[in-house]
């Protein structure tokens, strides 16, 4: 076997990885700069998120004492996980509409970067930002609700969060095509998608309470599996091994959603370039 080309080839690969890494970082750094510049908005959003989660948690406080802990935790898991997943979805989908409003989209699309790296950069930022926001809301909730986590398996909870992020990134990428095609209507349409996921995924109630004809749709939503597993981990202490099968299913959904999202996005980009829809709008 001839290994003579290996060092050169490896160097080239390392260089390419460094270039992609720099591009990824461009999106993360830019968005954190934006967060810093819109700090007052961030504080308002965080405040609202925390209050919203608390309000939902308090619905369970009125239940009989023997079920109180479980009910409150059930609701809070829904509020926290939905807060995280919807934020992830929003950030990925809205990063395109944000660029359209600012008029920078043509410059980003004109840059010599891979679209995959561009979209992964947006997703990585969304995951980092989402985790930071969720942890802050979690701390606020811990101060208000004295909930026993003695039976919870937090490690499994973290694994569920990470695995569910993958499929939500894919969903976000598909949704991001909508503002690419139409600035105003696109954003509205992403909210419709988000609303449907909220309804069908059993965020605050078991999906069995939904009309039968809606329940089939619940099984298409990655959030349904994410919530079931998060509740199994935090309410009943399920281990990663016990949840291996649904975790694998969720991972598989994510593994399909990301390339599907990328494919849909690239097709939408080509359509936008054929029809002139990348031009500044709004």
């Amino acid at each position, binding site marked *: 076997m001839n290994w003579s080309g290996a060092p050169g080839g490896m160097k080239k690969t390392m260089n390419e990885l460094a270039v992609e890494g720099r591009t990824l970082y461009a999106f993360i750094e*830019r968005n954190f700069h934006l967060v810093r*510049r819109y700090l007052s908005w961030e504080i308002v959003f965080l405040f609202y998120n925390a209050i919203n989660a608390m309000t939902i948690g308090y619905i369970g406080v009125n239940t009989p004492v023997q079920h109180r802990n479980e009910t409150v935790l059930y609701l809070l898991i829904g509020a926290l996980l939905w807060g995280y997943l919807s934020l992830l979805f929003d950030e990925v989908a809205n990063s395109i509409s944000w660029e359209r409003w*600012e008029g920078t989209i043509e410059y980003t699309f004109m840059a010599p970067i891979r679209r995959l790296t561009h979209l992964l950069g947006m997703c990585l930022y969304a995951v980092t930002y989402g985790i930071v926001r969720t942890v802050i809301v979690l701390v606020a909730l811990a101060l208000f609700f004295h909930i026993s986590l003695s039976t919870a398996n937090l490690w499994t909870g973290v694994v569920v969060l990470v695995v569910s992020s993958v499929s939500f990134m894919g969903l976000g990428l598909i949704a991001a095509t909508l503002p690419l095609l139409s600035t105003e209507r696109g954003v509205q349409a992403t909210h419709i998608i988000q609303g449907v996921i909220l309804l069908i995924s059993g965020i605050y109630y078991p999906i069995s309470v939904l009309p039968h004809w809606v329940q089939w749709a619940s099984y298409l939503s990655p959030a349904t599996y994410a919530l079931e597993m998060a509740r199994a981990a935090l309410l009943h202490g399920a281990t990663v091994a016990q949840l291996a099968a649904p975790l694998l299913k969720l991972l598989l959904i994510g593994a399909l959603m990301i390339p599907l999202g990328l494919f849909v996005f690239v097709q939408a980009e080509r359509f936008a370039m*054929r029809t002139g829809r990348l*031009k500044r709008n709004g």
Partner: protein
Amino acid sequence: MIAQVTTAGAVPAIEVREVHKRFAGDRKRNGRRKPFIAVNGVSLRVEQGEVFGLLGANGSGKSTLIRLISTLLYPDAGSVSVFGHDVVRDQRTVRRLLNRVSVEASFFKKLSAIENLMYAGRLYNLSGRETRERVVELLTQLGFSKAKIRAPLEELSRGMQQKVAISRALMTRPKLLLLDEPTTGLDPRSKRDVQELIANLHAQHGVTCVLTTHDMDEAERLCDRISIIDRGRIVALGTVEELKAAQDGVQTLEDVFFELVGRAWGDEEDDE
């Protein structure tokens, strides 16, 4: 005119061949859209090192042509190549070679010049340090103080914002610079600064520039050759002297323009 720097025989900086581009127009009362022909069989060649002017009224097809060259639009028919690379097939290679300044200084307005340009620099594979050094050097040359470099762009005048836009393009050291009405709406001082920058860029670094403008004096002063585009078609192409010589009894480039186009600036809508 600055200087004739064309390199005959070399690969042209831009080669546009029989390009057509049309868009779906506004919806009519019957619900149908009447297609709008933005570029109609345009062919032109821009040599390396040239400053090439593209003149036309609003809606004539200038910006569409710039977008086609800058890989932001696919042609319906025909081909566009930049330094021998096709803009559709070799998109990433072409993107590494060019940059663009448009009439709107498009930025994240809450971010400062340095924050916006750090983002742009990383997309062109510049390190943070490299970008910071280039940005400070370029913006200082353009009269920016340290405080202005770090101030949100929404607090800067349009002239200053346009200078940041030009720095964004220059920072990546493009071989081809597409300047789409870079001085439109600027005050006389800022306009002069931007024009000097273009002239210096061309004289010192031999960067090929395509300049679209409504300012005839600017075109005459900066461009080696000029083409006049009307309703998506090139109606004249040559040096200022050649254009004047081709029309009987005209004195100025503006006379040439009106002679060929036959109506005033701004008679039509924007071309997209």
